[in-house]
């Protein structure tokens, strides 16, 4: 297993370099260092000298990819690409273009993001798996039919509608929780409850349908018939046998998203005024803040790779036949 993990980590290095390279190229196709300087300095009364000074101070006066004026390794290292990327691989994200420490910003935003994402994920998983098992249990009945209709209806509605509708009903009409905002610590509950509920409800449709399909496929297998023939109750069959054997496809979709929970949700955080990571990248793109964009893309890539590795590990836990060899 250790060798496998080491191999996966080594694979990750070229992936991360590639992601960084693509991010860099895409960013600078759209934004030149001059544009970045203008965005930071404002558009009023900015002189060309001020722009040059800003670039020089932040190292954007160097060539982007290759420095033909430099000698030796300087051809590659004395460039914006190297200067802005190398330290990231040792966990130093540096400062945003407005001078603020990126690692600190990420650390302070991660908590609020998790406060929404984690309960949404756990409760959502519990509710959707339970509902899918329920539908599978009542398969081919009126309950199953209307349950699927409800799922299709739920998944057909835009996420934005859930948010605006939820805010309208729960916060505006019924005045049960604040419409937006956030507080640290235990006081967070009244701000978190609505976005979590909306996150759970908006995710039910697609997930429950997907899990139902998986469960129905399992239910048709011989071992289930054998279990029933042994006289086990339907609940025992579903929870002890069907659910366990359906775990691999469920884990494929679920475990990989666990690390990405740290990245937050753009829409929810924006509408509910949650100061999380969801909007950090978008704000940075709008502000042409390359330092933040590259850091967030890098972290996203690392988390995704971690998610994939965790998924592989989880396979071995639920299915002893899976081996890393």
């Amino acid at each position, binding site marked *: 297993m250790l060798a496998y993990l080491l191999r996966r980590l080594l694979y990750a290095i070229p992936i991360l370099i590639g992601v960084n390279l693509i991010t860099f190229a895409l960013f600078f196709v759209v934004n030149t260092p001059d544009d970045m300087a203008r965005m930071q300095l404002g558009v009023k009364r900015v002189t060309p000298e001020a722009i040059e*000074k800003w670039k020089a101070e932040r190292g954007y006066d160097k060539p982007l990819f290759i420095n033909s004026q430099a000698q030796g390794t300087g051809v590659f290292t004395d460039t914006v690409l190297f200067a802005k990327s190398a330290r990231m691989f040792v966990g130093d994200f540096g400062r945003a273009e407005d001078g603020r420490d990126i690692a600190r910003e990420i650390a302070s935003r991660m908590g609020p993001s998790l406060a929404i994402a984690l309960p949404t994920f756990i409760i959502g998983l519990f509710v959707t798996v339970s509902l899918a098992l329920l539908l599978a249990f009542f398969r081919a009945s009126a309950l199953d039919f209307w349950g699927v209709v409800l799922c299709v209806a739920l998944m057909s509605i835009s996420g934005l509608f859930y948010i605006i509708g939820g805010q309208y009903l729960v916060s505006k009409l019924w005045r049960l929780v604040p419409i937006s905002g956030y507080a640290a610590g235990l006081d967070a509950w009244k701000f978190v409850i609505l976005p979590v509920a909306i996150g759970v409800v908006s995710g039910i449709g697609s997930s429950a349908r997907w899990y139902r399909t998986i469960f129905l496929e399992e239910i048709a297998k011989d071992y289930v018939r054998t279990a029933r023939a042994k006289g086990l109750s*339907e609940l025992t069959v579903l929870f002890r046998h069907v659910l366990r054997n359906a775990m691999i496809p469920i884990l494929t979709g679920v475990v990989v998203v666990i690390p990405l929970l740290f990245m937050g949700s753009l829409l929810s955080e924006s509408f509910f005024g949650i100061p999380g990571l969801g909007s950090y990248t978008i704000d940075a793109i709008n502000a042409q803040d390359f330092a933040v964009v590259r850091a967030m893309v890098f972290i996203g890539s690392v988390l995704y790779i971690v998610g994939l590795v965790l998924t592989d590990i989880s396979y071995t836990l639920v299915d002893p036949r899976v081996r890393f060899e």
Partner: protein
Amino acid sequence: MIFFRLALFIVPLLLAACGSEQNDPYPASERGGNILYSAFTERPKHLDPVQSYSEDEGVFTAQIYEPPLQYHYLKRPYTLVAASAQAVPVPRYFDAQGRELPADAASETIATSVYEISIRPGIRYQPHPAFALNRDGTARYGKLDRESLQGIETIADFPESGSRELVADDYLYEIKRLAHPRLHSPIFGMMAQRIVGLAELGETLQSEAKSLPADTWIDLDRFALKGVTVVDRHTLRIALAGKYPQFVYWLAMPFFAPVPREVDRFYAQPGMAEKNLTLDWYPVGTGPYMLTENNPNSRMVLERNPNFHGETYPCEGEPGDREAGLLADCGKALPLIDKVVFSREKESIPYWNKFLQGYYDASGIASDSFDQAVRFGAGGDVALSDEMRAKGIRLLTSVRASNFYMGFNMLDPVVGGMAPNDRKLRQALSIAIDQEEFISIFMNGRGIAAMGPLPPGIFGHLDGEAGINPVVYDWVDGQAKRKPVDVAKRLLAEAGWPNGRDAKTGEPLVIYLDTTSGGMGDKSRLDWLARQFAKLDIQLVVRSTDFNRFQEKIRKGAVQLYFLGWNADYPDPENFFFLLLGSEGKVAKMGENASNYVNPEYDKLFGQMKDLDNGPRRQALIDRMNRILQDDAPWIFCFYPKSYTLAHSWLYNRKPSDVGHNSLKYQRLDVGERERRRREWNEPVLWPLFAGALALAALLLPALFYYRRRERASART
């Protein structure tokens, strides 16, 4: 049974939780406090006075920093009064030989203007650890390193703080900071041309910065600034090259707010920047408020500066202020509110609803809630909707010190040029584009059709017949009436484009509008604009692009027609007319004249006008300049925007101001009234909780029943 027990536990819990105002987004400890609640959409980029320039930042910096001057809160037109200064300084003029000249000396004879600013004694800074001293008088936190900063996360974590008196030297220090190469002050380039010695200081500091490792502290005291002298502890003298009467307006901006050197040195210590402990994050000033919480992703809190120096509420204003109750607090010590909480609201829906629930004390009006808030009477008069009036909400309107225009690139061979025919094409388009219709359809009436570059409230703007643009309007029955399209068609034909086609080749006239998407790029607006051009059989082609490319095209002069606006830095006609000055040409000089308009006569008149005091002579020059611009038509004057603000009944003394942002200290709250209203408006509705629980039970019970029946059923044969 389990469900029943659970319900027994949960229902009382829910009932207890759902007391009144369960939707209150603020901590219970703040209830009843003299706290103003407001919101911000964009996080401020800079709070350092040397860098901060945008209005979003001014909302905070103007309450914290105290430049020498400020605008009178109530008087209109905007009037400068003293803030930390004893009085508004009157410049003294000197010729090249250093001889003093009379106040009315001709501008060309003036080599130097000297402003002597006397600071009021006894003004003290807000409490801050940078001022904390040891018994021997040395700085308590003057020798910090990364290790000693462990456990320190915010400024409030420093156990000790201090204060000291504001002195003239602090202003000198801040003016030097304008030239600091690492601070990138947006006005350095402009001020370097004005303040004697600032350009040289900038060059010296630049070479000093290059010789030092990045982030090394540069001690500005080691470098002299020739044009600024500390006369005594409370007097500062600033020498400017030539005559620049607009300088006093800059003295009312945070750029000229004092920065104590010990604060600058405090923040420059190792490990501070990594913890965001910078002046840019935790500003320090002598103003009425101090920033005690800075989380620009969520909320920013200003609290009363305990050392604020006894300023009182004004006792005079403009006509109507007394009737509006704006003089009721005459003579009261400022600020009138203890604390201001700004919450970040990125979306307009939650912002609006929280205002309606009483959780924000004032709000603007977004387009999607405009109809809910405001209605127009038969005569076009604006009034609040019944819903707003029932809540006691007041509507405050004002015309902003801004203008919006569509500019022609005068370097363009089709729409540019100064020949009579070139002018006629632009004049025809100025007539054809119906700004009144645009304001009505797309701005909910929140604007006034522009007649020239100067908005109302700025000296030189004239109302009535004298102020109309005679190229575009006629004065009919006491009102400005846009000329008929036939006049535009005739002008177009005279320009060599009869029926929108080249008189020689028959080629159709195609005009390209460069715009950024999301601004004028909204499809419905552009469709409307295309229809305006179609009135003259001119084809409009829209080239939408991103902000960077748009700016690049403007810089290179690669546009024909563009849409822009300008917010006044200060309320002087110079600040609008300079946008069309030849020496400000975007392509030639990288200035602010995006139309690259050059008219020597206009430039000459501008040179005379900018140095004059407001009066008939200046008005005459402005009238002449307006006439030139209306004839040459380098811009299609679009509109002056109006701001609409809603304020709850418990918020007093709120008066819109476009140039002075330090208005929080004047506002007052009736907290009791707010508490009553909030309780009344936010009684929770509980039945949906019970209905939801019942619905869930109604769904689960049949399932349970079916399950049990199925489990008990015998196998079929």
